[in-house]
């Protein structure tokens, strides 16, 4: 179910999907987490996964992001050497991929930040992970990224616990993006924030994703977030994808009865 993209948005080598999920399932005993999920994600594409809590979207995200092996199916990621099944890699190689090729923005900043390490240390960690050993350059990169996520670089030596919720979430984004991943997974990135703070964060995310040409998978129960950020949408219910397509198409002309219910229950952006 790939969707044609305007050729201009691709670089010359972007001829293969960045992430290819085939029949991904995750069972917990008899309980279904997610089942039979198949899709391709192209470089620079933003995919939304919507559904109510318990629909399996977070389970799917954990499988895709390398945090939780699926019970069945394959998740293939495109690296310079070619496509690799991420769960056929050694745990060490998979973790390296997780720290360099993609990033995860957690709903709760506490899960994504080190609360007792300064903002600069938080942003610099991935650079040090990959072997950067020049303090000045690490600090300059951290400072630059704080600016890009609209945190005053003068606060580089403050700790996240002294930041507001919105700032913590932006710091988490800087921490992930500093290593220039090609793909970002976001789990309810605006959850738990005030409406005005949410709007600012969404705006920032939209700009960053566009400017960096990032691919992203965004899990949300908030259709407004999906409409604003995503190119394509998958609707999940009881662990299965029941509808997918271009975001505007799915939201404006939902086919499945459940999607119609979802879209009618809410909002206009």
């Amino acid at each position, binding site marked *: 179910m790939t969707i044609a993209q305007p050729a201009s948005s691709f670089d010359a080598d972007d001829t293969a999907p960045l992430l290819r999920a085939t029949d991904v399932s995750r069972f*917990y*005993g*008899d*309980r279904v987490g997610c089942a039979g999920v198949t899709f391709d994600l192209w470089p620079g594409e933003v995919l939304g996964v919507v559904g109510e809590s318990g629909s399996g979207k977070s389970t799917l995200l954990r499988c895709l992001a390398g945090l939780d092996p699926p019970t069945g199916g394959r998740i293939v990621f495109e690296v310079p050497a070619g496509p690799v099944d991420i769960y056929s890699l050694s745990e060490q190689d998979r973790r390296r991929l997780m720290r360099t090729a993609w990033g995860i923005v957690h709903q709760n900043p506490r899960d994504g930040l080190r609360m007792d390490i300064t903002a600069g240390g938080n942003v610099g960690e991935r650079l040090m992970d990959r072997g950067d050993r020049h303090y000045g350059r690490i600090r300059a990169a951290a400072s630059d990224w704080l600016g890009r996520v609209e945190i005053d670089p003068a606060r580089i030596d403050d700790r996240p616990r002294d930041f507001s919720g919105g700032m913590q979430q932006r710091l988490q984004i800087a921490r992930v993006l500093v290593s220039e991943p090609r793909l970002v997974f976001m789990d309810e990135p605006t959850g738990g924030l005030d409406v005005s703070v949410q709007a600012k964060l969404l705006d920032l995310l939209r700009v960053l994703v566009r400017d960096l040409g990032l691919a992203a998978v965004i899990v949300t129960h908030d259709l407004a977030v999906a409409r604003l950020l995503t190119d394509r949408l998958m609707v999940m219910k009881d662990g299965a994808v029941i509808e997918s397509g271009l975001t505007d198409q799915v939201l404006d002309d939902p086919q499945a009865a459940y999607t119609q219910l979802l879209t009618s229950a809410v909002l206009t952006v």
Partner: protein
Amino acid sequence: MYVAVKGGEAAILATHDLLAERRRGDPAIPELSVAQIREQMGLAVARVMNEGSLFDPDLASLALKQAQGDAIEAAFLLRAFRTTLPRFGASVPLDTAAMHIERRISATYKDLPGGQILGPTYDYTHRLFDFALMANGSRPKPAAEAATRLDTHMPRVPDILGTEGLMEPEVPPPGDPKPADLTREPVAFPVDRDLRLQSMARGDEGFLLGLGYSVQRGFGGNHPFAGEIRMGAVAVEFVPEELGFAVDLGDITLTECQMINQFGGSKDIDPQFTRGYGLAFGHAERKAMSMALVDRALKARELGEAATYPAQQEEFVLYHSDNVEAAGFVEHLKLPHYVDFQGELELIRKIKAERVATAAAAAGTHKEAVE
């Protein structure tokens, strides 16, 4: 001053003499015999045997004498001796159902086969001084014999529940492997229950008591019932290779506690009662009960419960319950650390000097600017 940290063999030897003198106390007062300690300080002896991991009332009494009654120091002595003993084998699993009961109570049943046997306990005493003990020589009147003999059949309470299928069964792990021995092999986490129980059996009573108490107060979320506490002599049997059948080596006194806990069930496990188990040398109910509470709390992982609290975290419990190790490391702070301290001292001075210099330079710049 400086000379004080310079040891010198003579000074160390002198401390040994001073210690011997202090241990003996006033020589005009008659010396305690090891037999007196063994007979009259039985609960202290039990604690030393538990934390020293060796059932030997005579040596535990000697350890208490040598350690001036310091239970941890005495346990240390016993352990340092135990570690040198040859291991010639393991006993047949002890059958506590066949215990020669001195005390057996259940809080979950008013009456049960075999009955409630109260035995020797402080539980029903008022904690008032018995000043008669100030003067030696009094002899307690002999306790009256019961009119009827104890039942020979004293089933363990969890076994009674087990026949109804209401109690989590105690089954060995697949293949029934030999239990690990934490005194011979390093522990690798996560650990199975054999190591957890072994570690707690030698663990500090006070530490386990605190952890068990924390579970009860809600830092662990269990709702325990004292299913049964029993104390008495149990036969130790051993199968020598050359004989091929079990030989009775003698009896040891044990205290066993089985806690019963509600369990709501999970996706894989039906709702049932789960158990916490405690076993200790000698008469040591507080130790056995604390151990049983923490044993149940440590089952969090197997039962799919969130391990949020200290008593549920095996690394926390196992690493910190050993009082001989803990005391050694806490007390090693008495060793000289002046080389490390010197490093810190230099650093603080350096940082302070740099900050003063920076401030002075800034003040100078400011002054220039003003001028």
